[in-house]
């Protein structure tokens, strides 16, 4: 299935939850926040969010800012 991660399409094998996506992106344990289809997901809930074809995931991290 196809999932959009930070605006870029990417193919994954189903079934899949949000934790699986982050693991494949090598971001587990990183200082990040994640939104799934526009909803911000608490860290403890990643395994509860099941990913479907066409879903959009945004992953952000701290960056320089004024």
């Amino acid at each position, binding site marked *: 299935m196809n999932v959009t991660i930070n605006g870029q399409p990417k193919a994954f094998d189903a079934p899949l939850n949000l934790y699986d996506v982050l693991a494949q992106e090598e971001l587990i344990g990183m200082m990040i*926040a994640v939104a799934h289809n526009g909803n911000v997901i608490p860290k403890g809930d990643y395994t509860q969010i099941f990913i479907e074809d066409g879903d959009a995931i945004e*992953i952000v991290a701290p*960056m*320089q800012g004024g």
Partner: protein
Amino acid sequence: MSQSLSIGDTILQSRLFLGTAGYPSPDALRQSIETSNPGLITVSLRRESKAGKGQDFWNILKGLGVPVLPNTAGCHSPDEAITTAEMAREIFETNWIKLEIIGDDYTLQPDPYGLLDATQKLIDKGFEVFPYMTDDLVLAEKLTALGCNILMPWGAPIGSGRGLNNPYALKLLRDRFPDKTLVVDAGIGAPSHAAAVMEMGYDAVLLNTAVAKSGDPAAMASAFAKSIAAGREAYLSGIITPQESASASTPLIDKPIWHQK
């Protein structure tokens, strides 16, 4: 005299709020924070990838022990800003958010209508909103009516280094909101600008470009820290009222008359 500032239950040890963007190197950023000991530092959020650029940046900051104020820089709508604020809360485990919604790309002037809309929604969600705003009195009244404890009017457009475009409006805000935490955010160029803000009785100054783009960021950060401390001490000490006429400072009583005939 105390230079600390309380925001909610947090006591900040300095009234310099320092941005973390645009430094010539990570070392320059770290040294600037170390030489100036800011009360807080501002950070942003950007998309992360396997490269982990955000993790490298965070590794610089996390050991310094300075409170973090996340921002919504680059947002042009309330919805964008609210999602960014929620993601910032998730990452930094703070309900503080510098709310920045840009309304004009040339001046980077904040959008007052979007600001009010987003402020209401974020306060309802439990955020302590630090609104980046123009120096408009009515906007300030509406933001405080929504529950803002802090107001952050601009001195001049972001990164312009112009200083205080409208000291009258800034002083009016101070006079009208004596119990709110007021911070001039943006437009500062020189330490004298920051000192002038503090001499008006403002609670803090937020700046970034004036340090990051200076010839020696670490030294400039130190200069700003000193100017802000000096301005605060001067304000607390009671600055004299300007007069139209001269008034001799040296007493004339018992002055010897050398040329008496």
